């Protein structure tokens, strides 16, 4: 019996490819009549290029990356849509021992509190500047990444100008811990297990996490070549159902040992199962003796983690504008608004009778506690989803949000 649909997908060796990997390896795709072939890639640029020339139908992608493709910011791109998100949270900011010592002298505590850590880092940065020393150098994985935007958001909200007071460079995730240990960078923002790796090596401290900068914030997505999606709606819908079942399985704590063993295989992450556990349990070692449990550290399924909220795409767009990656024009805004496709997600999952949000966008940062929301099918709980600085992003007030961030930046 042959599979009905042949689907080829690219992925990067990062833990948040787990939903895609499990779908391919544990039979979720096969059950939907899909032969899902995965190709491991070495750079996001390769993923983008191979989607553009049609080698891949879809891929594990950074959330803002399909926006960057459609907005013409990348050298080689095809129109890419996002019908599924691979999870919420999962990143940390890790710094060197020397920077940690400097921050501690300015009042930092090993508790992951973004406001306290940011204030201490700001104090240390200004102390260095006054002494005429070079600015600290931080690394992120890609310019159009959640990592870049959350690092910048965090620093800016703490009064540090990420363009003038520090330097931000690009380093591939597996090289981060080495670059930190050898002093080529002073800190970085990356997904797990590349933060715990530096802590385990004794060369880094985790100072804050994505889940505390913006709780339940978007991370990786499934980016799909639009022309393929248009021509193969049934294959795409079948894939979204397979990913839904896979994500539900990945979230279940009863499956975490098996999932960690799967991701540990050389074809996927090739790192021991033990290093996959912090992202699954949210129990982090921060450096030194400090440990912390982080609520909602990484969610592959719960809290509507797979729903491609247009408000997530639009928030990424506001940050692209904020940091000069793209101009704010009605045309660009329309492109950003059309990139994430909750309609495709909803159409594919409706037959399953599962909880589906009633809206395509939400006010981000408005839920102070976990809240049941209007949904078709079974009940759906969202939030809490606050930004650490108490800001709210209302996608209907996007001009005011962009203008507000500009003026805040100019005050720095």
């Amino acid at each position, binding site marked *: 019996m042959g599979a009905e649909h042949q689907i080829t997908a690219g992925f990067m060796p990062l833990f948040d490819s787990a939903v895609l990997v499990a779908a391919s390896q544990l039979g979720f795709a096969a059950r939907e009549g899909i032969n899902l072939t995965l190709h491991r890639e*070495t*750079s*996001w*640029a*390769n993923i983008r*290029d*191979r989607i*553009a*020339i049609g*080698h891949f139908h879809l891929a594990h992608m950074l959330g803002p990356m399909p926006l960057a493709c459609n907005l013409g910011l990348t*050298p*080689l791109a095809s129109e890419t849509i996002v019908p599924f998100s691979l999870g919420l949270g999962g990143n940390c900011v890790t710094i060197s021992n020397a920077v940690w010592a400097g921050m501690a002298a300015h009042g930092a505590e090993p508790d992951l509190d973004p406001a306290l850590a940011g204030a201490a880092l700001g104090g240390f940065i200004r102390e260095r500047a006054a002494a005429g020393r070079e600015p600290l150098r931080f690394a992120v*994985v*890609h*310019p159009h990444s959640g990592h870049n935007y959350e690092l910048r958001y965090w620093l800016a909200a703490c009064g540090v100008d990420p363009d003038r007071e520090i330097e931000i*460079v*690009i*380093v*591939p995730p*597996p*090289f981060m811990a080495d670059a930190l240990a050898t002093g*080529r960078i002073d800190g970085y923002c990356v997904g797990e297990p590349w933060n715990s790796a530096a802590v385990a090596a004794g060369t880094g401290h985790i100072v804050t996490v994505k889940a505390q900068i913006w709780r339940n914030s978007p991370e990786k997505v499934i980016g799909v070549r639009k022309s393929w999606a248009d021509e193969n709606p049934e294959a795409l819908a079948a894939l979204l159902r397979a990913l839904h079942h896979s994500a539900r399985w990945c979230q279940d704590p009863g499956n975490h040992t098996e999932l960690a063993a799967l991701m540990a295989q050389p074809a996927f992450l090739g790192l021991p199962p033990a290093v996959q556990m912090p992202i699954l349990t949210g129990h982090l070692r921060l450096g030194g003796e400090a440990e912390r449990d982080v609520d909602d550290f990484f969610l592959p399924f719960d809290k509507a983690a797979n729903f491609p909220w247009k408000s997530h795409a639009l928030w990424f767009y506001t940050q692209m504008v904020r940091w000069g990656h793209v101009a704010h024009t009605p045309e660009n805004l329309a492109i950003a608004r059309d990139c994430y496709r909750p309609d495709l997600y909803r159409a594919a999952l409706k037959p399953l009778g599962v909880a589906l949000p009633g809206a395509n966008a939400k006010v981000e940062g408005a839920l102070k506690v976990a809240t049941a929301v209007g949904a078709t099918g079974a009940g759906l709980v969202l939030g809490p989803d606050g930004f650490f600085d108490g800001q709210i992003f209302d996608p209907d007030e996007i001009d005011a949000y962009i203008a507000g961030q500009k003026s805040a930046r100019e005050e720095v």
Partner: protein
Amino acid sequence: MVRSSLAVLVIDENRIRASIIEAGLREAGHERVTIIHDVTGIARRIAEIEPDVIVIDLENPNRDMLENMFQLSRAVKRPIAMFVDRSDQASIEAAVDAGVSAYVVDGLRQERVKPILDMAVSRFNAFSRMARELEEARSELEGRKVIDRAKGILMKSRGLSEEAAYTLLRKTAMNQNRKISEIAQSLVTAAGLLGPAEDE
């Protein structure tokens, strides 16, 4: 302008492949070829070399870093457009298939760059063909060793001449529609299981 005045930078962690590309470029009359294997401190090197064209292998995990550097023109001091001409789909496909990518300085005309990319693509293909042939030669050599051992087992246990032992292996392989080296491997494995037929 003279064609050979283009400065070409080749970034490839595989030294053998890089030198094959370099040789090809020099044969084609490009004198100003620089090769980098390790991307540490590359921003400074690029600023020194001021390349017109950069050729890089797709397996290099630092591609994202390089692209970002090119976009922040302060590192390279001038704007760079990439991947030859976006409209040239066939070139792009051939390049990605071969595992090579090229970054081209803005304003450089496509017809001057395309031969360089085409050359790199054919050298990449030649290299992977060579690597494949090497691998085949290696496994053939190993196959021959196994066949020799199987022949030895047959000669010892059945009292056959070397030629008769080989004929028996070949006949069995033909009857079972399998490779002679596979039959030999099964025999060696079986002999190992059945006890000290050979001194190991």
